């Protein structure tokens, strides 16, 4: 199963709902293009909803890191929402759990972005 994304706006925050696999190839490219497109359009408060992401490999992890630094370098903020246990464990062992701002409630996540 490849990756799918859809975006929606809530209170000035762009929520990207991702589903499927973020792996080398199509999944990583879709994530990269989606985030770059948002930043180009000036949307710099981005919440990646990973609740339906079934699998991430090291390329996918790298793409999440790249998305994070891309948005930060443009003065924005990128946070993660609804990690599955698999993704949570991956971010723990790679020490990235402390790098990302990870939320498990959408409303709390939205209100945590600077107004």
């Amino acid at each position: 199963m490849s990756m799918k994304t859809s975006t929606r706006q809530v209170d000035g925050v762009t929520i990207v709902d991702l589903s499927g696999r973020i792996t080398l190839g199509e999944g990583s490219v879709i994530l990269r293009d989606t985030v770059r497109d948002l930043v180009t359009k000036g949307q710099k408060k981005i919440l990646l909803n990973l609740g339906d992401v079934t699998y991430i490999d090291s390329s996918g992890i790298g793409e999440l890191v790249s998305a994070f630094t891309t948005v930060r370098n443009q003065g924005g903020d990128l946070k993660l929402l609804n990690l599955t246990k698999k993704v949570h464990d991956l971010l723990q062992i790679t020490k990235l759990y402390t790098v990302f701002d990870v939320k498990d409630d959408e409303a709390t996540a939205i209100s945590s972005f600077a107004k």
Partner: protein
Amino acid sequence: MTENRVSYTLDSSLESVNMAEETSQQIAVKAGFDEDDCLKISMAVREATVNAVLHGNAYDPKKKIRVAFESTSRALVVTITDEGKGLDVNNIPDPLAPENLLKQSGRGIFLMRSFMDEVRIRLLDPGTEVTLVKNVSGSAANHKEASQ
């Protein structure tokens, strides 16, 4: 001791990576590993195969990768071989070091070592051979005993 061996010679492509991942998952299930270990094994095989295709053979259509599975009552051993220029085993950066934490790549071998009991890297001439070992224990050992 019962042994099962199978090997595949594959093109340097993403399709081969997916095939190796799916095959390792099936073999791990058949060997009796639990769901968590099956995922770890298939992820480690995916990472090793990605390295072989991407960094080793650099998608060169003239170069092949070989993925071999050997399942015994003691362990599942997966060997991934490429025909590339060879990995510099003495210069593998630590992805957990603060200066590397936000780098986009460099986590593959770390993940293999996290998920498997043993990871051996051997330079060939040309190429690199990565051997991944997952020992049979707990549910997998009971499954093996029951099926013998």
